[in-house]
């Protein structure tokens, strides 16, 4: 049994992942699953892939866990200094451009797809997608990670512009849940972060509370063996 043991104990930590961010009128909603894998083993079933860059700008991370962490650490460090220098909150555009610079200038070393989203007083809510290669695109909504493959068709139909906060949140939770249902590299819980003028709010949707889809069944209410 030795060969099997080595395969996943040595594999790099990867967040296969489903991540997404949606702009609604008033702010943004970021969403992600919580599964981190090393090969086929689930190293962390409750990861937090939505990382703070500043008070008003957050980052969704996918791909290599190490690469995305180090990029986010550098950008948080730079933005911290930038905020002190500027004397006011950084803009989402500034944060996104810094993330893009690191991704683009180190494209041959990095393997991480990122989504930057937040709120500032100039643009309101904004979402920026930064896929592999370091392209920077401002978008009404963005998806990423291996699970996002399963969402193109769904979102082509379900996304609409000018959603309310409730509609946007529901769309994010449903999307991540659908991706978790089909993508082996995504799973666990759904985390969302809402950012608007008032501030930041984190929500947690437990894995057993997510909607059930095709061929999934509800758990039995109590365990068979009582003691």
């Amino acid at each position, binding site marked *: 049994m030795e060969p099997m043991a080595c395969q996943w104990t040595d594999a790099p930590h990867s967040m296969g992942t489903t991540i997404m961010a949606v702009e609604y009128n008033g702010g943004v909603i970021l969403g992600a699953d919580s599964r981190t894998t090393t090969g086929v083993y689930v190293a962390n079933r409750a990861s937090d892939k939505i990382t703070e860059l500043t008070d008003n700008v957050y980052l969704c991370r996918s791909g290599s866990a190490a690469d995305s962490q180090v990029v986010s650490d550098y950008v948080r460090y730079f933005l911290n200094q930038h905020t002190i220098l500027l004397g006011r909150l950084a803009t989402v555009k500034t944060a996104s451009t810094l993330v893009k610079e*690191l991704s683009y200038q*180190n494209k*041959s070393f990095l393997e991480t797809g990122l989504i930057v989203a937040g709120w500032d007083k100039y643009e309101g809510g904004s979402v920026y997608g930064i*896929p592999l290669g370091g392209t920077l*695109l401002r978008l009404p909504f963005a998806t990423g990670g291996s699970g996002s493959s399963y969402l193109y068709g769904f979102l082509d139909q379900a996304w609409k512009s000018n959603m309310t906060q409730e509609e946007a949140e529901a769309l994010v939770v449903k999307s991540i849940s659908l991706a978790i249902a089909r993508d082996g590299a995504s799973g666990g819980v759904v985390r969302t972060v809402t950012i608007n003028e008032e501030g930041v709010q984190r929500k947690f949707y437990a894995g057993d509370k997510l909607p059930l889809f095709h061929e999934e069944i509800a758990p039995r209410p109590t365990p068979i063996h009582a003691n």
Partner: protein
Amino acid sequence: MDFSNFQAPGMYPYHASSSSKQAEKSYVDHPIMGPHNSSFTLMPEAPSKHTKYPYVTGTSVLGVKYKDGVLLASDTAASYGSTVRYKSVQRLKAVGKTTALGASGEISDFQAINELLDQLITNDYMWDDGNNLGPVEIHNYLNRLMYGRRNKFDPLWNSLVLGGVKNGQQYLGVVTMIGVHYVDDHVATGFGNHLARPIFRDEWRADMTHEEAVALLEKCMLVLFYRDRSAINKFQIANVTEAGVHISEPYALQTNWSYKAFENPTAGAVGSW
């Protein structure tokens, strides 16, 4: 203030000063304070990157000269492998008042080229000397840029179409990722070379009006939509005349699928395709 001993904590994997540089107090080679090409790497003293591969890519760009100027055309798609991932990406850009640039290939590299050109044009403007960079100069600049990167085995993964008008003269050229460059009356990148150029060779004329030239481009873009899997039915056209550069809003073309032969193609040979 003496910055020669400055080193941001934990920022670089290598020590900024090797033994041979210990005597120097200057910061010529310093990762932050020394002169560098404004790139922002995590590994400044690592070996240079080698040939990469593209991730997010645009497909064909077409270009034609006509009576009053030059037209460039492209769709608004950026693909991620076989997935058409982004469907509202502008792959045409105005460069100053005289020139338009269209790019196929890696979009992040196109964005970097745009940044460089913006700086170039701004600098040119600030000279305020009555001269401005025209399409010939931009073409040459881009050629040197692309060829230089190719020589370092670190190409900008794009094929560029450059169209412009200066002093009444139309100019239309191409630069590829390996530094191949040329001018012609009609040009294309990628798939466009195989599907559009033959149509251009048959139907292009130097004295075409704007409407005729647009019609010719639309005919080719429709063929590309039918036959290029990375193409979508959403296009933009850049029009460059003596008056300046105008890039249209995205629009779609009417497609035709109503051929009798399309309705039941395998009726006479069940199982065929």
